[in-house]
């Protein structure tokens, strides 16, 4: 197994990615709405930019999760109770491999976007 394969095998589960995406999107939208209706001086361009960064991160992570989920579904179609665990792992890997590069880029993109959003937070005050 190559190093890349080991990384692919360790990609987070779609459920976890979906959970994080929900969290990011929630944060972004909450930031926007609380700034708009709160008494802190209203919406600023920076606030809007920060919100967009959160939501963008969520969107990228969601796309990655969907791709991984589809790969899991394809693997489940081929799976059978007759298979041993190593075979199951290999089938899952085989379905993940073609989309792994894109999924990793999307996850990294999402994380970068979120990091940017976090960095911007102190400037909003």
């Amino acid at each position, binding site marked *: 197994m190559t190093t890349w394969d080991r990384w692919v095998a360790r990609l987070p589960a779609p459920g976890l990615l979906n959970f994080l995406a929900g969290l990011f999107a929630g944060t972004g939208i909450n930031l926007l709405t609380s700034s708009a209706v709160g008494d802190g001086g209203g919406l600023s361009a920076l606030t809007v930019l920060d919100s967009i960064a959160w939501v963008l991160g969520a969107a990228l992570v969601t796309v990655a999760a969907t791709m991984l989920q589809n790969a899991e579904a*394809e693997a489940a*179609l*081929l799976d*059978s109770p*007759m*298979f*041993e665990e*190593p*075979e199951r*792992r*290999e*089938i899952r890997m*085989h379905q993940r491999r073609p989309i792994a590069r894109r999924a990793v880029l999307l996850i990294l993109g999402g994380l970068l976007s979120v990091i940017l959003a976090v960095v911007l937070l102190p400037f909003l005050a």
Partner: protein
Amino acid sequence: MWERAARAGPGATGSPAWLRAAGEDIRAAQAEALGGTEPLLTVQCGLAGGTSALEVRVTVPGRPPVLLVLAAADLRAAVFRGTDPLALVAHAFVARDRPLPPADQLGLAPHAPPRIPAAPDAAGADLAARITAALAAKLDVVVVGDEGSGKAVSAARAARLFAAEGGAAVWIDLRSGAKSPPTVVWELLRLPRHDRVLVVVSRRALVAGFQDTRTIISRLRHAFDLDLRLLTTDTPSAVAAMPALYGFYEQVPVRQPVAMPGQDAAVMYWFACLGLFGIQPLVAVADRRYHPEQLHRLQQRELIHLTAVDGKVYYRLGAGVTPTALVAGQAGLPGRAPPGELIWAYLKMAGADAGRAPLEQLDLVGFPGRDGHARVEGSRNLTFSWELLYRLGEQLDRYCATNPDWDDNVGAAVFAAEALAELGHAEQWRRVAEFVRGRLSYDVPGELPRATGGPTLEEGDFERIQANMIAEDLFLGGRWPASLLGTGVDKARFHSTWMLGVLLGFEGSALERSDGRLDALLATAEHHCAPDGHFYPRRVPWVTARVVLGLCGAGLTYATHDVVRRACDWLVRPVREGGAYAEWWKGGTGSWNRDEATTAMCVVALLRAGAPAGEEVGKAVVWLRSRVGEWTRPGREIDLALALEAILLGAHDWRSSYGRLLNLLSWANEEFRGGLRDLGLPEGTLRAPFAAAQLAALVRVAVSREAAALVEPAPAAAERRPARLEPRLPATAGMRLRPSVTHWREVTRQIEEQLEGQVQRRRAVLRRAAPGGMPVVQAAYDQYTAQLALCRELREKLRERTPIEVIERLVELGDTVCGTGWNGGLSYDDEAGPR
């Protein structure tokens, strides 16, 4: 298969172009199967309007098409798994709303008829001609004969005759694990056009699946106006046990009934049944049963003779009479009771001492080694049961002589009367019956039984039942409408409905029938049966079961009476659909008639009624056995008696319950000896008479099952075990005798099927990967392919005298593939020592 859909690529999955390609693949698969000939059922494919699905039209000329919609998800799964396209269509036809199972669970496989000997003997040719004549007269035909009597070969011969006359024959063998309904459709889709088609279902191993086959064939007949005939094979006992199923069939017996005048034939059948077990009937008993002129006539024809032993005179069969042939020739004919029933009736008439000897014989013959188990030395269960039961009868007699009204407990009196009737104690029965018939009024059709002269003692039990229901409601919450809650239940109606069932059993088994009362009770049962089949209250299935048992006691069955049919159907209907079944049956009355007793009662009711065998009964018996710790507790003897009957009737290893049967008999004897007392337990006053009634029935059932097992190995047991040991031939050096080469081939086929499944699944996966892309799966595929080749090679080497190495390699392969114990006692551990 699926070349066009696969070419479209995974990205196109579900698109119109991909669906069209899949449709083309389905049509191509049919064309390929037919080799260019015109199909019987034409398959046309198109896009379903507005949905991402494929519409398949199955047509015959001049009939409206049958529309099937194949969802994109099912198509995609079929393409990935490499499922036969026509199998997908067959699955959609049979089970429209169910998702497509994996290919190895579809249960489709082409089947070949058994090899037909070149020159049939006269009997074989005659049977084939009779089957052909029956097929010309009726759509559904069953060939009835014992195991190994040549049913399948004759069916194959008839199928060949059918084909020779321009028809087509489809052969389905359920032994191969095929699922019959989809296989029928699949085979028809691959069949060229014919005017007549015969579906032969060999070895009706799965009753539920087989019923589905008849349903699907009826559907095909109506949908396509096809001349579709069904031919199957079964044993006489199975046909007799399932009148509801086989009532629609023309029955063709393998052997013609023995030619004998009707009356004499029936008498000889009785002698032959007893003769099967070496019983020489007492002249006194035979004279009470048959007219002396008849017996004299048989003596003159030298069919029976008189013989004297120890001062008693018996009849014995004539030298030229073979009881086996006589019984086999007449079993299943109208008016011929099963041998076990006749033996039981004889034992009752013969009395305790005369009855002991035949039972000892049954004990000795019945237990050893039929299923490969060792002889159980000293297992005289039937003899002991008979003796204890006889003693119980005497105790019951004594009790009834002094207390025929059972302290005004009509329920107890009725159960005691049933026990007395079962044991043939007419005098005491009459006294108890007089009390029951006087104390309750139940001669008005449509009116539930009611007490005359104030409430009876057992009505008080229903107060306690109500308290239990209230306690259950508090514990489990209100799962029922207000009228069915413990607080809202109508106690009087509840008691009367239960009493209706009890009285039906009483009048049905009465030694002196009162037709007026029985007819009134039957009319009342019909009147009070709810449209969905339950009896009040719906939450308490044991009331419905009790009424079914009563109706069965009156000689009615699922096949013959609408109320029994409706009630049984309600019992097996799942709770979510308004029925009573939820893997087992819940009592609904808290700690009174708990789930174990209720389940046992429902199982017995369904079995006695001859309801079509579904999986419900089997599952419930398994559950019941898992609860053995509950129903064997002291104080729950009613549960024990009910559970024992359920196991005796429903389990294939019924003998395991004999020990408990003896315990219960001993308990009942002690109970009567020590004086009956109500210890405040549920149904405390009813326990002893109820147990006595049950025990009489239990011993009868045990005798019947032993007798049936002797006449013919129980079909259910034979089906569940892969194989049995058979008598062995003398060994020669370096060779090991096989239990049966046929059985070895059967179990080899099991291994082969396992391996084929393993290989097929992996091939489907590897087809999706680049060469070398999945090394682990590839390695497993190579390993299973090699094992499959080895298995086939070994199968080819199985002969009458198979070299020991072949057998050992086969056993080893079986252990590897199917796990240890796969061969069900076929190996030679007893001869070769520990492996």
